[in-house]
């Protein structure tokens, strides 16, 4: 199955009628690798209409919905626990990304799987929160000295926490990119535009939800789940934005210096989902074309069926770009040498030598 057919299936469920057993097999493999089986069920409405898919495929879509429903319940429960912590401490807190989609019950939250809960707090509240979590059933992830330094010194963030009773994983942020990065997110503007839900939880408004997802997609070194990020953004724009709102969305991106990322995002959306957004671009067209192609070929799973000959080279390029987005060049060199030596050690002595 190639990328075009996969994208066509997500956009138009009638294409499913053209698939045979081999096609459904390839589709299931891709959906599993992208954690999109249940999302697929909602996008194609095959959760409701059980006669579209053959039985052998429908059974897996049904099983995936059971799992994603359970995860949604767990997210609500975990967010209530975390909100209680913030209320006890009297600190402000926003839920980000997957948790925010779930709490806000966005279209893209349906069927979504969650690996952790991301929250945003004020930088001055980090230490207070860390002490509270350590004393109330949470444990910070054990890190080696290097990774601890990465979090605390370069990102000025806390390492991830795990709730000992429930296993929920919590990532605590005070901004959307590491502070050593040359980007400066206008985090005050994000806080000024927070959305308080009827349920009592607070999340960023839809523009900042999209910005954060775009940062995750375009300024990260790991694009393993890149397609899911792009799908999230596409669905958020469709749900919350009219065409004229895209100018305001661009303004939010530009406030924090992400002009190029906004233009690149539009190019990618048009290429993948045939969106036909037309906005004037201020970025050099050759740069947009190059990086659009690079991301288009990198964000799909590393399956043989979807790989091109340049896949690995472009993944490496995106990997380097992602790191350079988050840290100065000097630090990047040190980081790459460290990572490369660990990778070589694993290749020689086994993948799990450090575990």
């Amino acid at each position, binding site marked *: 199955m190639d990328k075009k057919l996969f994208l066509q299936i997500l956009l138009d469920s009638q294409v499913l009628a053209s698939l045979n057993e081999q096609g459904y097999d390839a589709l299931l493999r891709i959906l*599993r690798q992208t954690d999109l089986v249940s999302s697929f069920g909602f996008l194609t409405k095959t959760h409701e209409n059980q006669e579209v898919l053959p039985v052998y495929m429908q059974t897996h879509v049904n099983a995936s919905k059971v799992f994603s429903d359970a995860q949604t319940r767990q997210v609500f429960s975990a967010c209530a626990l975390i909100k209680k912590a913030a209320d006890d401490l009297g600190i402000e807190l926003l839920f980000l990304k997957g948790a925010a989609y779930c709490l806000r019950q966005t279209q893209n939250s349906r069927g979504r799987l969650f690996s952790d809960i991301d929250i945003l707090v004020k930088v001055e509240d980090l230490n207070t929160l860390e002490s509270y979590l350590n004393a109330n059933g949470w444990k910070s992830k054990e890190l080696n000295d290097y990774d601890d330094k990465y979090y605390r010194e370069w990102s000025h963030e806390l390492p991830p926490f795990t709730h000992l009773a429930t296993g929920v994983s919590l990532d605590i942020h005070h901004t959307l990119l590491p502070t050593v990065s040359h980007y400066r997110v206008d985090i005050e503007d994000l806080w000024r535009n927070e959305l308080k839900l009827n349920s009592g939880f607070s999340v960023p408004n839809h523009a900042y939800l999209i910005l954060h997802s775009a940062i995750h997609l375009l300024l990260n070194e790991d694009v393993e789940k890149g397609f899911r990020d792009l799908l999230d953004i596409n669905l958020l724009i469709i749900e919350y934005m009219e065409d004229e709102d895209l100018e305001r969305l661009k303004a939010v991106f530009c406030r924090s210096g992400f002009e190029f990322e906004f233009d690149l995002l539009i190019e990618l959306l048009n290429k993948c989902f045939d969106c036909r957004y037309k906005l004037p671009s201020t970025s050099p067209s050759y740069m947009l074309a190059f990086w659009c192609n690079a991301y288009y070929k990198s964000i799909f799973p590393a399956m043989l069926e979807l790989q091109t000959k340049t896949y690995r080279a472009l993944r490496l390029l995106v990997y380097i770009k992602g790191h350079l987005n988050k840290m100065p060049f000097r630090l990047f060199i040190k980081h790459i040498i460290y990572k490369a030596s660990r990778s070589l050690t694993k290749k*020689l002595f*086994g993948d799990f030598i450090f575990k």
Partner: protein
Amino acid sequence: MIIDSGLHSFRILGAPEHIKKALVELYGRTDERKFADFQIRLNRNGLRKFLKPQVSIEIEGQQPFNPVPPEKLLPSIEWAMNWCVAAYEHNHLLIHASVVERNNKSIIFPAQSGSGKSTLSTYLALNGWHLFYDEMAVIDLKSQKTIPIFRPSSLKNESINIIAGLKKPINMSDVTVETHKGAIAHVMPHTRKIYQSLSPCKPCAVISISYRQGCNTEIVELDKAVGMSSMLLNAFNYSVIGSSAFDSMVELSNSVRFFEVTYSNMQDLALFLAELVNGSVDG
């Protein structure tokens, strides 16, 4: 190659020839159908090809297990297949247990690894019973029937000698030594033809077993609430399925009897189990 276990099919890619041979010997046949419920890919690690080679096991893009040397692959593939079922099969309730059947009634033995359930269920399967599955009770939520699965039992360490010592004709794989669970061998206690004659059926009993060398067989019947709670401690996906799992298990608990059994003599225990399925054990 595709392994057909009845309820699920598993595509195994990259298997070395000795593993393919072992799988065909256990499962009778494999096929090359176009749709597989699960896919497991075995990858030889690059630089390690020449120095203590290892094979990594990729399951639907994930690697939940440590890599292993090629000679230890068979148990790892069997564990990978179990992992697929536990990770993705949420249309049925899955309980960590062995399940055997006789007279169209099944008995569920929920237990942790090392309890002796595999030895007992393999013994029973070679003495007039049918093995439904050695790793899990796969339960239909609407009917509470246990589903037969065509997979071998997994024997560890001394239990390999115990079953081999029965001197019955059996389909047992070669022993894989020095796995993290010790020596492992797999036994397919019946042919695919016999498997195809089996039907899902309701359990008549749920029995927590505990092997203790030299003891007499001690049987304690449990209160239904206690029995159900104890059984669900071994459930893989009870909280995933949620309230419909609770409702289904209440129905099941109302129709089965729960026991705790300590034993050392499988033959003795088998007599009790036969009486259970015959309905001749008083309450």
